[in-house]
């Protein structure tokens, strides 16, 4: 007699939530860019019996971007979800998992992320800064000015840009550009970089030291620049997570 089909799972059942946690950790562990994502809602769950103690689970997940860069050692549970007024970014993921004798593992995942619509933000918060394109001229200029300013004052290693994570531009009541970007320590001190910056390369993987910077430029009514960078210190990478791709976007 064929095994009875598994009882339909609810999206808030403990088993669905356990599978969703495995899926979200998998997605974050294999992402190379941007920020960590946290679970916001389990949209749907399907279970297919494969055999005794062997199930395939298909989850449709609704995630939200957190403020933790993907390279940050901060545990996901301590990462704050970016609020609606900070122009939230949503991730929609379809994940296929296997539950074999009680152990859940991810077989495949496909995700798509998108920022909340500008109209939604404008309707509720007319003066909130909106996300700009990462290659927006003012964003690029602000990142460059902020990193140069930090490197000109730091007593630590010279930092190179890894990628721009986010850029927001506000026009009222002041014209402010706020940026967030990932950086890596190089084999130069800031002083050495002043002499020959071309020789300053990112540290090799076994000494890598990544970090994150936030910067703001006020263009009007006054002129001001603020930047803050934090290095994470060397992190031992778990073997199954591929190295951060070295391209700088």
């Amino acid at each position: 007699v064929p095994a009875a089909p598994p009882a339909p799972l609810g999206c808030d059942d403990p088993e669905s939530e356990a599978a969703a946690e495995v899926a979200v950790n998998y997605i974050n562990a294999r992402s190379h860019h941007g920020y960590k994502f946290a679970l916001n809602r389990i949209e749907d769950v399907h279970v297919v019996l494969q055999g005794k103690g062997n199930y395939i689970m298909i989850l449709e997940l609704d995630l939200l971007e957190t403020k933790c860069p993907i390279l940050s050692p901060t545990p996901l549970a301590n990462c704050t979800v970016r609020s609606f007024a900070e122009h939230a970014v949503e991730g929609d993921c379809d994940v296929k998992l296997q539950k074999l004798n009680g152990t859940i593992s991810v077989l495949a995942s496909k995700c798509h992320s998108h920022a909340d619509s500008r109209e939604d933000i404008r309707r509720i918060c007319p003066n909130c800064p909106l996300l700009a394109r990462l290659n927006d001229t003012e964003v690029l200029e602000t990142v460059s000015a902020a990193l140069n300013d930090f490197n000109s004052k730091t007593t630590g290693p010279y930092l190179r840009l890894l990628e721009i994570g986010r850029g927001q531009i506000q026009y009222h009541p002041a014209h402010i550009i706020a940026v967030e970007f990932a950086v890596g320590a190089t084999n130069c001190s800031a002083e050495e970089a002043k002499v020959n910056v071309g020789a300053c390369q990112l540290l090799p993987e076994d000494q890598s030291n990544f970090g994150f910077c936030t910067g703001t430029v006020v263009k009007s009514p006054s002129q001001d620049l603020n930047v803050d960078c934090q290095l994470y210190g060397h992190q031992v990478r778990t073997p199954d997570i591929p190295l951060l791709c070295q391209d700088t976007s």
Partner: protein
Amino acid sequence: PVTKRAVAEAAQHDKVPRPVGFVPPPPPCPGKIRHFDI
């Protein structure tokens, strides 16, 4: 008319009596929102 009435009455008896204050369980999906809905 007798048939109709009989069917109507039968249907009425078949209907499962709901206990007072019965709240149907929430639909199994989508699940709860943990932060906010975009």
